């Protein structure tokens, strides 16, 4: 078939992509978002930021560009000032020495408590325990972005299916789903999330994704429902019905692709919204568990560090988040323009 056409003509997606390519701001935003996603992917594969819990620097190690000139490697005397330095035993015998020896015998390769020399400064500084802020930001980005993405996909999926059913079939299904929508929007979003977080005692990334995803479908639902209401009486859908196309076919083969621009923009908006929500929740301690780092948990620590004048963790997490969210918002705007159905004809 394709052999017969020398040049297949451009569909709406191709046209939208071309329009996006002409939008310089949009493309820049796309590249920035792409870079973040790449970092997340690398972190997921375990290729970068493998262990943020390692205490590689001195406590509150300043960023490199603020370090007192020359020497980069730590002097042992400075290391001992830290709380996690070797504990002086004041001549007492170590009560666990025997066990330690036994463990060493069983695992000859393992190194126990060998303190690597701590660095005086780190690329983006260090936190209270001397964790590398750069590693933490990468790991935190991974958590925050993944939570935002997965929750947004979940919420968009839910909202789309419910909106499609409500808008297309109308009648009691619409009434029922609209009622549910009314209930979920009557409670301010964050309050609902707080309430669920309070009830679910176990914290975890999966719990967080579920909370955000199961409560965040309302915006998508409203818009998709409106689109379906509009499209189901459009002539092309009526004509498909007159041809004998089934309801499912009309809903998903005919209408769904024509609402995809709304869904895509909503998805993109949800990612931003959920990242912001995750940050607030984790900041308040209702989000990720303590052994997971996210932008929110970093801000929480950084809040107290700022009082001591140690601003770098706050800046790192804040800037990382602001850049991504700005890029994502601009990408959303560019997508909205590029996909605008008014430009099609």
């Amino acid at each position, binding site marked *: *078939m394709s052999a017969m*056409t020398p040049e*297949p*003509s*451009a*569909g*709406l997606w191709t046209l939208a992509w071309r329009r996006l390519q*002409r939008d310089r701001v949009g493309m820049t935003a796309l590249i920035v978002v792409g870079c973040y996603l790449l970092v997340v992917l690398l972190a997921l594969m375990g290729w970068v930021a493998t262990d943020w819990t390692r205490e590689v620097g001195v406590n509150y190690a300043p960023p490199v560009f603020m370090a007192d000139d020359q020497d980069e490697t730590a002097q042992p005397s400075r290391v001992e000032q830290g709380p996690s330095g070797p504990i002086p035993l004041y001549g007492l015998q170590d009560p666990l020495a025997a066990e330690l020896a036994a463990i060493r015998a069983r695992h000859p390769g393992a190194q126990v408590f060998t303190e690597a020399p701590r660095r005086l400064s780190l690329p983006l500084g260090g936190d209270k325990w001397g964790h590398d802020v750069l590693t933490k930001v990468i790991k935190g980005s991974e958590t925050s972005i993944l939570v935002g993405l997965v929750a947004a996909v979940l919420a968009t999926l839910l909202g789309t299916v419910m909106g499609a059913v409500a808008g297309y079939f109308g009648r009691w299904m619409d009434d029922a789903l609209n009622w549910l929508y009314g209930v979920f929007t009557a409670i301010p979003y964050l309050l609902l999330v707080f309430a669920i977080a309070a009830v679910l005692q176990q914290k975890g990334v999966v719990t967080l994704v579920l909370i955000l995803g199961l409560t965040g479908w309302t915006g998508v639902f409203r818009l998709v429902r409106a689109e379906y209401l509009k499209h189901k009486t*459009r*002539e*092309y859908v*009526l*004509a*498909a*019905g*007159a*041809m*004998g*196309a089934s309801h499912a*076919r009309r809903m998903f083969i*005919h209408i769904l*692709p*024509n609402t995809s621009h709304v869904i895509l923009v909503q998805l993109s908006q949800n990612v931003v919204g959920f990242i912001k929500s995750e940050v607030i929740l984790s900041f308040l301690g209702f989000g990720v568990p303590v052994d997971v780092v996210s932008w929110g948990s970093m801000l929480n620590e950084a809040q107290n560090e700022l009082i001591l004048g140690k601003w770098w963790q706050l800046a790192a997490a804040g800037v990382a988040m602001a850049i991504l969210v700005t890029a994502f918002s601009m990408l959303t705007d560019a997508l909205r323009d590029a996909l605008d*159905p008014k430009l*099609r*004809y």
Partner: protein
Amino acid sequence: MLLSVSDLRIDFQVSREERFTAVNGVSFDLPERTTLALVGESGSGKSVTALSILGLLPKSLAHVAPGSSILWNDQNILGFDDTRLRTLRGKEIGIIFQEPMSSLNPVLSIGMQLMEGLRLHFGLSRRQARHRALELLAEVGIANPERRLNDYPHQLSGGQQQRVMIAMAISCQPRLLIADEPTTALDVTIQRQILDLIADLQHRHSMAVLFITHDLALVSEIATQIVVMKQGVVREAGPLRQVFDAPQDAYTRALLACRPPLGERPHRLRVIEDFMGEGHDGVERKVRKRGVSPEDEIILEVRDLCKDFMINEGFWHKRPFHAVKGASLRLARGKTVGIVGESGSGKTTLGLTIAGLLGADGGEIIFSGHNLCQPGSVDSMALRRRIQIVFQNPYASLNPRFTVGDILTEPLLLHGIGRNAAARLALARDLLQRVGLPQDALQRYPHEFSGGQRQRIAIARCLTVKPEILICDESVSALDVSVQAQVLNLLQDLQDEFQMSYLFISHDLAVVHYMSDQVLVMHDGAVVESGDADGIYAHPQHPYTRRLLSAIPRGV
């Protein structure tokens, strides 16, 4: 000379790189107290020309080329500053638009909108302005002006809204009234009243009128001078009789010929190509016979069909609105029943109900011996497939995300026609050819086609399932006259070839007359008159039919 446009050229910035020339070197003169009609199809640049006179084009998009001039009393309007332009607008030149509903501010009262201009240009006090507004409303024929003054636009009918727009436009005694398609959105009977009103006011206030329209028949009733435009260029200009009686330009000749005439019924409508070609004036004087004989096989019979819509009213109540009240018709094989009526007459509802897209609330639709209204009637879906429909809006009737190939093969796939994809594509290709579209259209998307081409695609889609009845719901109403003629010819050819029966729904009385063997006149949901097409047009019985027919502009 009151207004003198010369060498006007306007470019629109389409995108960052692209420019589109909407008006290209247009010149014409408009003397005092005359009516000049600017005629053209969509994209001819007629409205852009009109808007540019008042400087109403968006400055960021529209560029008037240097060298253009629009002289108003020998002063170039294009050189006016904002202050001078504002006294020109409203005070010296008034304008009315196509859509009166959207042209009035929906949240301000009629009175406020009328008085605004009076107070601005004449410095009247509130009392004086109110007094003058009442006079104006009475002058444009609004009953009960005292009450109407406090009404909002949505409380008025379309005709009344246009009267208010006219009152606003003439409120400051302008010397020129620009009327930009003022009756296109209105029903034919209302159109007649508005035209009469404009003519009357022009006479009384000795204004000049610049009348912009696509409808040549209208022009002959109102204008003394005429300018025919196509794609931004003036094709022909001159006094009305001269242009109408002896058109010099091929395009003008084509425009005059391609509207279906009311008096006779040529076998085929003439189209632009007949004229634009080399000199030959494809004269075809064969006349088409219309009418139904008793031997014709009746394939569809509708008896007392009713359709209600529920309107929420008051506290808990729902009130039924009777959209179709007991309509009956008989459609013979290979024949056409035309349904005419104004907006809100229920003609489209009747068509959608027969097509099975709306459920009936009473009556019978008997097709092939089955009553389609009976729930669960034998194979109702299979039967319904044999009744297809072509809609009005060519932009909404094709799925924008499907290629034309997808659009045409989908029904084949759904009904298991054709052995495999290749066979179905071959069938689709044949159909494309049948409706006069090139082969390579299969891989293209709807947005790459013009309105007329899209209607051809929609017709081809119907043909895939070999319908016996085709319902044409205002199928040519959105098209330019020259394209309209081509699509009507296509429909006619297909009927001759496949012996399909048509239900032809339209507000356009001339088109319905051309297409139909029998005609049904609808008014407020009821069929007021039905019968042989020629009979009804020649001797209308019902007063409404008479009113309708007398309102048709019979130009030419």
